[in-house]
């Protein structure tokens, strides 16, 4: 039995872990578009949260321990190098675990001339940059010459951005196993940003940030009083909201009393009930216009991050396999009973590609485990598909002698495409760790695919 997996983030790995527990003889091929695995664990989790990245070790161990069963192929893009249709035809089942590749749009990002304003940046571009993903240069660190920045949206990504930009620089030396890139540290240390507004369309109790991130931030960056103050008069009901209020009240009662915080002259502030309607500025953004309390207000800013959520995009090949994709939520529609993507025969999906971009790793793991169970059920029911079994016996893989190849993969291997195998990745991984050791960090990442491929030459 063969399972093809598109993507190599936590959704992919946790689904595979579960499917393998249920079908121990399963052969798995993981296709990763980038040069490195682990999805948002590597490119989304902030560099000062190394403990959240611990799961990478578990994922690495899974492949290291099961080399005969799991084949990892990096730098392979489904829809370009291999079609989804080919995977669907040649594997017993296909898992799409590609996450949410796009950004939810405010719809007001452009200026009156219809051009994007300089200084209005999707949060994702900045998150990629501080995580060392510099392919395509989507964030220009010279924008950090701004004095004041505004983040539209108040989830954990917004709090990550505040923490990265406004924490005392000492933080990056204090964190053990930090993997903040040297060039990124350079950019952050030159930042002129003194204050960040974190703006929400609704109120404090509708904001999506978690108390863990909030508590951490309050220990690092001074917070100005919530605007409007009346927001604190709302009675908290849930456990989470009660704690939010307790944390805010803790600012004046000395709950966050530490030297690092006292020495920090920068600040952030929550602003609620503001609906952004327009950005001001000709070439570069100068202000955001909101509706607030039924009125129009204009608040000046030098830099805007739009952080209103990642969103899945319809991928190349969804149509060819009949996959139903909900444009409104940016998610693949799954049959709740079977886990199969609606409209397809054997395609499954897990993680943000199916659920949308909310929830931390625990939520993704839960979704992945359920999908892994359902894949196992499907495979056990359909293990009499002799055509595929025959195909399996045909030839040996040039990539990994222990795994029989599929036509699509062997065709790819014979072409010019430089596949980054698991062994290649291990070389890159070791080199990143070696470079990190020199500068006292857990790793110094390759910043572009070109750099990675150059090293592998």
């Amino acid at each position, binding site marked *: 039995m063969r399972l093809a997996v598109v993507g190599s983030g*936590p959704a992919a790995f*946790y689904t595979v*872990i579960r499917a*393998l*527990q*249920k079908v*121990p*003889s399963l052969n798995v091929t993981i296709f990763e578009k980038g040069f490195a695995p682990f999805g948002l664990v590597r490119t989304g989790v902030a560099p000062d*949260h190394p*403990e*959240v990245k*611990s*799961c990478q*070790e*578990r994922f690495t*161990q*899974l492949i290291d*321990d*099961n080399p005969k*069963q799991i084949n990892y192929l990096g730098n392979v893009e489904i829809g370009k190098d291999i079609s989804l249709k080919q995977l669907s035809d040649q594997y017993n089942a296909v898992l799409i675990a590609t996450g949410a590749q796009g950004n939810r749009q405010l719809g007001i990002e452009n200026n009156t001339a219809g051009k994007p304003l300089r200084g209005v940046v999707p949060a994702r571009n900045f998150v990629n940059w501080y995580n060392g993903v510099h392919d395509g240069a989507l964030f220009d660190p010279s924008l950090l010459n701004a004095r004041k920045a505004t983040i539209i949206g108040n989830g954990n990504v917004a709090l990550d951005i505040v923490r990265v930009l406004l924490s005392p620089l000492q933080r990056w030396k204090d964190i053990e196993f930090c993997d903040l890139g040297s060039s990124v540290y350079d950019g952050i240390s030159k930042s002129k940003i003194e204050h960040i507004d974190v703006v929400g369309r609704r109120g404090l109790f509708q904001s999506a940030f*978690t*108390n*863990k991130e909030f*508590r951490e931030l309050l220990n690092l960056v001074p917070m100005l009083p919530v605007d409007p103050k009346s927001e604190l008069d709302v009675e908290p009901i849930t*456990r*989470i909201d009660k*704690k939010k209020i307790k944390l805010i009240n803790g600012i004046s009662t000395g709950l966050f009393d530490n030297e690092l915080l006292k020495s920090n002259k920068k600040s952030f502030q929550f602003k609620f009930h503001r609906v952004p309607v327009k950005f001001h500025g000709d070439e570069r953004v100068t202000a955001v216009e909101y509706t607030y309390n039924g009125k129009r207000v204009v608040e000046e800013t030098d830099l805007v991050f739009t952080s209103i959520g990642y969103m899945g995009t319809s991928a190349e090949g969804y149509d060819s396999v009949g996959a139903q994709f*909900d444009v409104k939520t940016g998610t693949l*529609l799954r049959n*709740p009973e079977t886990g199969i993507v609606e409209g397809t025969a054997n395609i499954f999906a897990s993680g943000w590609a199916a*659920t949308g971009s909310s929830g*931390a*790793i*625990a*939520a993704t*793991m*839960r*979704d992945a*485990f*359920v999908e892994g*169970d359902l894949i196992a*059920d499907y495979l056990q029911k359909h293990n009499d598909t002799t055509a595929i079994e025959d195909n399996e016996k045909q030839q040996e893989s040039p990539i990994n002698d222990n795994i029989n190849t599929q036509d699509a993969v062997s065709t790819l291997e014979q072409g010019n495409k430089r596949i980054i195998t698991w062994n290649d990745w291990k070389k890159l991984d070791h080199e990143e760790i070696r470079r990190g050791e020199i500068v006292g960090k857990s790793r110094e990442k390759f910043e572009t695919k070109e750099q990675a491929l150059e090293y592998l030459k």
Partner: protein
Amino acid sequence: MSILTKTGLRVAYNLRPRMNTYISAARVHSNLHDLTMFRHASLSGAKMFHSYSMLQHGHVHKPKPGEELTVTYISPDGSQQKVEAAAGDNLMDIAQANGVEMEGACGGSCACSTCHVIVDPAYFDLLDEPTDEENDMLDLAFGLTETSRLACQMKMSKKIDGIRVALPAMTRNLQARDFK
């Protein structure tokens, strides 16, 4: 039947019967002297799938003779596994060393909620108070109860000898479109 067992059974309805639960625990780190794991490994047959990384998680000690403490883990399907443990080890490491299906995505550093368990109320008050950090992570736990804790934050001690904890079922949040 204890409240806890009922909880386990109630949440089990949407889980399929679990097979090969113990196959996954076959990787044995050299400093781990757990004979039961060897037994499981030999039972599991030719196709071995290694799920647990003992290098990462297997920091458990062998209890000294006469000082063995016990923990009972209750699976979502209601099945129970009573294991011996040494004082000082945490309930996540103990679970993983004994092949109990418990994930610890952050490696036991209180940075995720994947090792969420429901503690038998009879033992809950014997535990030390959770820290603010643990409470923050419990905010994110699925199916939070009055006696929820993170296994990685509970250290085994004589005081809680015999403790019983239930693993919550892995279920999917129902989405609005599921009702269409």
